[in-house]
Structure formats: structure tokens, C-alpha cells
């Protein structure tokens, strides 16, 4: 492969880049696991293709989903992607926990290099390809519905963002099959990730996957900021928006300003690696500490990009399932904005030990603690919302309660870490790992799962199984405590993070408990899939076509489930907060409109899939130094954009008669539904029509 024409065609690829070949040559447990993972990707892809072909669903998939510009379908596709990537990254986490439990005074079953790839992919995937797609998906689905809009401001751009993220996630999967991933952690610190220490393809996979994903996220932020500023229904003032939309707005603003530092950091690292620049090298004036600043200028706001939408979900869920207006709406909006602003002022706390002066550390330590104030305000507001409400302990509400308890514990350890002297002691230990999992599992994952359960009936038209939801919930919570509380102990005892082999027998019981916790978390994920499977099978019994299964408060509940492509047959007029909750009590909803009009919607476009696919191909070319592919890819992207700018036939009109007919059909379903009291909302009696208590 390194002679003749091959380097020009295949770049630096050779057969030993395939894990199958490596496992054949050297059949150790570690290599076999690597080959096994690669086989899962290959077999999974083949099975998917065969299945779709066998079912004859390619056309359906292409025209109804992949090329769709409908924000609802794009949202669903983001969430599907998030679940796929969650599965991979959670399995990796379990492998790491098993290795550490096994490798006490022994080398365990995973080789050091493989272990390093595992923690690098686990972190990168969980942040960029699980958390980001999940929250982007929920924002995509819910925001236009809640502000009373028919779509986002830039539907095509939305599809491009999705496909850039999808292409980047694809690149992560390809890295399992061809070559190896970075061993430099999810933050990719140089100089270790420079050519001098990591000449292989690993860091390049990381650089280009993250870069594609971050460009997608920047464009998502742009899209939703403009959507929320410009597309609200008449009367939907800023201070009448649901709190979820407020958090979506703040997250969008953070994406606009915080993703560019990541793009700059990865681009400069790429210049170092590809063209021999000296930004972060150890010689000729390079300064790797500048990378730490650039990366965490992104990295800290990123934490709030992840957490704020979950806060929004909790605000919706707590209010709905307490049958009470959200307590302290104004203080919650101010707290959300305050967190968004403060998030840009604390990045140095990620590297207190880097050598800057004690004064600088003190300033950033105090700024860090300050963030605890608005966050505390929120927790109190949610508690006051529940106070004297009729709290219903549905699955989303359970996640919200578990979040409040767990997140506060994580917050307290965060305040501890905000003190530079203490941070010096536990820096780079499992204490930190325990802390950020303690923030992100309740502060992101529970929130997204709460949102998934809460809005699933709206999106798919039927409720998820309550029983399996509770089983999954129990596993997520018990698993979390088992897996991460021991890490606080281990970290305080001095166990370094990212350790492949452990030489302290006293750590053994804690590592066993943590390992058990990881298995429980895996069971939690399995329970979610069982729940989805059973719920789809029993969907006919659990339909909520009338559209309001939870006695909801926002506009999204005032339409059918699933909603029509254009969301609202007639754009609603908003008179206050919780417009649907107040309005249905005055009999303002469920009535045919006086006039229906033609509705113009964007036509499907293959621009998004093409840009995502070609972008990923170009990135693959960059990783393997296949220059013809890179040039072709870049030209194809530019060509696609220019060609699309010449397209004029990009809209289609849905005739007023069809809109009226669809609306009538739904109103008939509403008329046929029986209104139910809240006590039986989790039974099959729930057809999506709430009994209005008088």
C-alpha cells in the first residue's frame, strides 16, 4: 500500500488499519473487542440496508425523512441519532468500568492504547453526538410549536445542520472500522495531540468530527435565535414565551458565540498537524496553554448549552404535572439569562493548575461560585411550583424530582472544585469525573429523557409505556448513584482519571460498586428500548389523537397528535402566559376556523444530505491524506450551495380545502374523545382530551 499508485489513491491507508486484520494477527481480548465493535458497525449497516430494501422503504425514507425540511421530522431524526450514539458511548463506559474493576494489580483485558481510545470516544460522543443532537432535537421539535410558528426561520439550513452533525457522527462510527481514534481525551490537549507525539490518524478523526459537528451547532444556534426573535405568533411577547423557549433562546445565543472558539481551536490544531504551523507545539514559540484557553472558552459555555434546555424541560414538566402556573416566571427568565452571561466568565476554572497567578484563579473561582446563585433560584422556583400543587408522579415528573436532588449534590461538589486550593488537590482525579457526571446526567440526560417521555405522545400520537418508563427511570437513578458516588471517594483518595491499571488494592470495593452501577445504567438503556418496542406494539390502545394527554399549558398541546406538517391550520392569537391552559378553560379552542387559507411550505431538498455526506467524505479524505477526495469534496460542497442558490421552485402550496379537511377530521376525533380526569391519564382511557375541572 505504500508503493506505486496506492499512496495517491488511498493516502496513508494500509491493511493494518483494519481492526479485523489486527485481531487476526494478535488475538488478544483487547483486539477482539476492537474487531467486535467494528463488526457491529459493519453488520449493523448491512442489516439496516438489507432491511430497508426488503421492506421497500428507500423511497419513503428518502422523501418522508432524509430530505425533509419539516422541523418536527428533523427533530425526531436528531433524537434517533442521539439514542444510537448513546448506546455506543454507554457500552464504552461499561467496558472502562469493567477494565478498572478487573485491572487491580493486573493488566486487565483492555490494552492501554485501546483504553485511551475508549475514554476519548466516550467523552467526545457523549458531548458532541449524544447530548448535542438530543437537545437540538428537542429544541427543533418543540420550539416552533410553542411559539405558534409553522416552521423555523431557515428550514434548509436546519436540514444542513442535521446532516453536518449526522456526517460527523458517521465519521465517528467509521473510525471504529478504519484506523483508530484519538487517545488524547475528549478535549484533545496538545502538545500530546500534535504530530510529534500522535502521528497516527486518531487526532485527525477527532478534529474533523468535532469541527463538522461544531459548524452544524453554530448554524443551529443561528437558526433558532432568529426563529424565536422573528417567528412568534401574534401576541406571543417575549415574557409570554414558555420557559423552554427561553432556555432554547439562551442556548442558541451560547451556540452562536461559544462554538466558534472550538472551531478555531480545532482548526489551529489542524494547521499544526497538516501544515507544520507552531500554535501549540513545544518548539519555535508554540504555546499549548493558548489551546486550553480557546478550548474552554467553548467548553464552559458548552456546559450551559447542555444544561439550559433541560432546565426548560423541567420547568414545563413541573408546572404541568403540578397543575400550577410556574412559580417565579420572571426570576426564572432572569436566572436563565444570567447563567448564559456568566458562563463566559469562568472558563479558567478548568485549568486552575496551569500556572497563572493566584489572583486570576481567585477571580475565576468567585465567578464560578456566582453561577450557583441563579441556579439555586431555579431550584427554589421549581420547588415552589410544586408546593400545594396536585403533583402527579408520572415518568417525566420522576426524572424532574431525581434531577433536583441529584443536581444539588453535584452543585455542592462544584462549589468545592471552584476553590482553587481544593481544586489543586483533586485536579485530574476521579473526583472531577464524578462531579461532571453528577451535573450532566441529571442536568442533561434526565432532562432530555423527561422531555422525550413528555412530548413523545405529541410527536408520535401515542403514549409510552408507563411501567417500563418507571423501570428505566429506577435503573438510571440507582445506576447513577452506584456508578458515580464511589468515584468521589476514589478521587478524594487520589485515584487519577483515565487510569488503565490500578495499583491500590484498597480501591477494589469502590471500583466493584462503580462497575455494578455501570451495568445498571446499561440495563436502564435496555429498558428504554424495551419500552419503545412495547409502546409501538401497543400503540393502538394508547393513542392520544386529540393532542392533549397531560392537560398541557403551551400552544403545542392545542393541536392534533401528531401535528400536521404546517402545525397550525390558523396561526393562533396569544393573550397571555400558558395560552392553551387558560384558553381551553374559556372554551377558546377546539373550534373550526372562520376561514382557512392556502399554506405555503418549503419543498423537500436533498441539499442537506448531500452536504452532510460529502462533508464527511472530505473529512475522511483529510484524515487519511486522500487529497483527491478532499478537493472533490470541497468543490462538491461549493457547487451544491451555488446550484441550490439558483433553485427557484422551492415552495409548495397546501390548498385551503385540504387544510380545512384535515382540521375537520381532527375536530371530529376531539368530539369523539372522552375527556378524562388527571387520575387516569396514564391509562388507555387517555385519548388526549383533558377534563376541565371547574
Amino acid at each position, binding site marked *: 500500500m505504500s508503493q506505486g499508485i496506492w499512496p495517491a489513491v488511498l493516502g496513508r491507508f494500509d491493511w493494518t488499519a483494519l481492526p479485523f486484520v489486527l485481531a487476526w494477527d494478535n488475538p488478544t481480548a483487547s483486539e477482539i473487542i476492537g474487531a467486535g465493535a467494528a463488526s457491529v458497525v459493519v453488520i449493523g449497516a448491512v442489516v439496516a440496508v438489507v432491511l430497508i430494501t426488503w421492506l421497500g422503504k428507500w423511497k419513503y425514507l428518502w422523501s418522508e425523512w432524509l430530505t425533509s425540511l419539516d422541523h418536527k421530522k428533523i427533530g425526531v431524526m436528531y433524537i434517533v441519532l442521539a439514542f444510537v450514539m448513546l448506546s455506543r458511548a454507554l457500552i464504552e463506559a461499561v467496558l472502562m468500568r469493567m477494565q478498572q474493576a478487573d485491572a487491580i494489580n493486573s493488566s486487565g483485558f483492555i490494552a492501554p492504547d485501546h483504553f485511551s481510545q475508549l475514554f476519548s470516544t466516550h467523552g467526545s460522543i457523549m458531548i458532541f453526538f449524544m447530548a448535542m443532537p438530543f437537545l437540538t432535537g428537542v429544541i427543533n421539535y418543540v420550539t416552533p410549536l410553542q411559539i405558534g410558528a409553522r416552521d423555523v*426561520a*431557515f428550514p434548509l439550513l436546519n436540514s444542513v445542520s442535521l446532516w453536518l452533525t449526522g456526517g460527523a457522527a458517521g465519521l465517528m462510527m467509521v473510525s471504529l472500522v478504519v484506523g483508530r481514534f484519538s487517545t488524547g481525551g475528549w478535549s484533545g490537549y496538545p502538545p500530546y495531540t500534535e504530530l510529534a507525539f500522535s502521528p497516527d490518524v486518531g487526532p485527525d478523526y477527532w478534529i474533523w468530527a468535532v469541527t463538522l459537528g461544531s459548524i452544524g451547532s*453554530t448554524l443551529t*444556534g*443561528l*437558526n433558532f*435565535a*432568529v426563529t424565536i*426573535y*422573528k*417567528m412568534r405568533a401574534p401576541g406571543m411577547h417575549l415574557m409570554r414565551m414558555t420557559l423552554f423557549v427561553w432556555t432554547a433562546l439562551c442556548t442558541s445565543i451560547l451556540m*452562536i*458565540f461559544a*462554538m*466558534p*472558539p472550538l*472551531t*478555531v481551536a480545532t*482548526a*489551529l490544531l489542524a*494547521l*499544526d498537524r497538516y*501544515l*507544520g*504551523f*507552531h*500554535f501549540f507545539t513545544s*518548539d*519555535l*514559540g*508554540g*504555546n499549548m496553554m*493558548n489551546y486550553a484557553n*480557546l478550548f474552554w*472558552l467553548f467548553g464552559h459555555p458548552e456546559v450551559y448549552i447542555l444544561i439550559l434546555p433541560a432546565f426548560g424541560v423541567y420547568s414545563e414538566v413541573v408546572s404541568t404535572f403540578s397543575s400550577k402556573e410556574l412559580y417565579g416566571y420572571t426570576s426564572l427568565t432572569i436566572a436563565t439569562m444570567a447563567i448564559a452571561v456568566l458562563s463566559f466568565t469562568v472558563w479558567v476554572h478548568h485549568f486552575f493548575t496551569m500556572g497563572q497567578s493566584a489572583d486570576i484563579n481567585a477571580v475565576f473561582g468567585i465567578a464560578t461560585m456566582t453561577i450557583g446563585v441563579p441556579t439555586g433560584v431555579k431550584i427554589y422556583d421549581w420547588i415552589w411550583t410544586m408546593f400545594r400543587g396536585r403533583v402527579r408522579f408520572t415518568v417525566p415528573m420522576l426524572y424532574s424530582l431525581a434531577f433536583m436532588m441529584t443536581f444539588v449534590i453535584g452543585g455542592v461538589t462544584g462549589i468545592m472544585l471552584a476553590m482553587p486550593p481544593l481544586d489543586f488537590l483533586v485536579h485530574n482525579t476521579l473526583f472531577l469525573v464524578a462531579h461532571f457526571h453528577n451535573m450532566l446526567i441529571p442536568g442533561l440526560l434526565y432532562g432530555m429523557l423527561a422531555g422525550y417521555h413528555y412530548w413523545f405522545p405529541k410527536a408520535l400520537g401515542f403514549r409510552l409505556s408507563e411501567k417500563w418508563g418507571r423501570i428505566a427511570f429506577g435503573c438510571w437513578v440507582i445506576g447513577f448513584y452506584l456508578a458515580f458516588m464511589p468515584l468521589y471517594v476514589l478521587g478524594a483518595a487520589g485515584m487519577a482519571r483515565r487510569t488503565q491499571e490500578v495499583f491500590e488494592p484498597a480501591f477494589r470495593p469502590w471500583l466493584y460498586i462503580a462497575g455494578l452501577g455501570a451495568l445498571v445504567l446499561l440495563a436502564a438503556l435496555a429498558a428504554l428500548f424495551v419500552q419503545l418496542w412495547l409502546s409501538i406494539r401497543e400503540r393502538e390502545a394508547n393513542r392520544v389523537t386529540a393532542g392533549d394527554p397531560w392537560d398541557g399549558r403551551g400552544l403545542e398541546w392545542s393541536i392534533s397528535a401528531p401535528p400536521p406538517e404546517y402545525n397550525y391550520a390558523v396561526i393562533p392569537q396569544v393573550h397571555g402566559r400558558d395560552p392553551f391552559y387558560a384558553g381551553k378553560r374559556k372554551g377558546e379552542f377546539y373550534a373550526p376556523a372562520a376561514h382557512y387559507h392556502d399554506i405555503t411550505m418549503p419543498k423537500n431538498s436533498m441539499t442537506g444530505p448531500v452536504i452532510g455526506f460529502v462533508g464527511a467524505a472530505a473529512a475522511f479524505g483529510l484524515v487519511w491524506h486522500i487529497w483527491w477526495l478532499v478537493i472533490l469534496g470541497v468543490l462538491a460542497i*461549493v457547487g451544491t450551495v*451555488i446550484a441550490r*442558490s*439558483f433553485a*427557484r421552485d422551492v415552495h409548495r402550496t397546501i390548498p385551503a380545502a385540504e387544510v380545512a379537511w384535515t382540521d375537520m377530521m381532527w375536530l371530529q376525533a376531539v368530539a369523539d374523545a372522552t375527556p378524562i380526569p388527571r387520575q387516569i391519564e396514564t391509562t388507555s382511557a387517555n385519548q388526549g382530551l383533558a377534563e376541565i375541572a371547574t
Partner: protein
Amino acid sequence: MSANEARHAGLNLGVTDEATREQAGSAVLGFWVFLMSDAVVFALLFATYGVMLPGIASGPTPAAVYKIGSAFMETMILLTSSFTFGMASIAMKHETGYGRLLGWMAVTLVLGLAFLGMELRDFATMFGNGAYPTRSAFLSAFFALVPLHGLHVFLGSVWLIVIMVQVLVFGLDARVKINILRLGLFWHFLDIVWIAIFSVVYLQGLIA
């Protein structure tokens, strides 16, 4: 809402095209947001340049490699091109024919390409004098910041050509008008970035 009320920052279509003016509201705001994001990229590269400036590594110093005369000429050319683009925008808004619009756009394009040509010649001179990016951290930072601006000017020029073709193909339909508004913002934004480059990079470089 009166027809003269601004729907977005910058040149509005006003009474000349009511329907497009409404559409332009979110379209142009979206582009402003993109520019703010792009501005963050440049801000960070300026900061990186500041950090890297002492990283000479016994190589060429700023004072030794910068040609202030040439940089000044480039500044004048780019500022003039912003003026000519402004004239193109006014022609787009008020003229019924396309002659003046295309004329001013062509002049802008020529000035943009002239700027790029001069800049490339400057880079070639720097390379010739041993000032290439792999030599030191300072030069790495220079060659990340300044050519990125040049790349923007290049993409802006491609965009100019595409829009000129679209004016000929479609006339001034709503999308072409909105894209001219956006390209205008882009072109003026590049001016502002260049002024920062001229001040922070070239003028500061004179202080030996």
C-alpha cells in the same frame, strides 16, 4: 408599522419593495447573527496573534517583514470597494434597470481581485524573505489571521459573480435582492476586519 421603519440593521428596501422588505427582516437578521459568529472567530485569531507575537523564535520580526506601503494601498482599495458596493446597493434599491447595479458590482469585483492580487504578492515576498508560517509561532499566527480574511474576500468575490449571473438570469427577484443585502453586509464586515488587521498587525508591526 410605516414603510420607512427599519426591519433590520443596515440598508432597508423601504417603500421600493414592500413584500421583500418583510421577508428581509429575518433573512438579514440571520446574516447579522452569522457575522457576529464570524467576528468571534476573528476576535480569537487576533487574541491568538497577540499571544503569539513574542514567539519570534529568533526568526524574522514583524518590523522586518511587513511592507506598510503595500498594506496601505490594499486598505485604500478595499475601502473604495466598500464604497462601490454601497453604490451597487443603492442602485439595487432605487433603479429599475440593472445596468448601474451590474456596473458597480463589476467595479467592486475588480477592486476585490486587485486586493487579493496585491495581498498574494505580499505573501510571496514574505516567503521569499524567509517569513513562512512554519518558521515561528508569530508567523503561524500571522498566516492564520490575514489569509483567513483574504479567503473571505475570495469567497465574497465568488459570491459577487454568482449574484451578477443571477441578476442576469432572474432579474431582481426577492431572493436576489435579499442576497445583495446580505453580501453588502459581508463586504462591509470584511472592511472592518481589515481595518483591525491594518491597525493591530501592520501598524503595530512598525514598532520594532
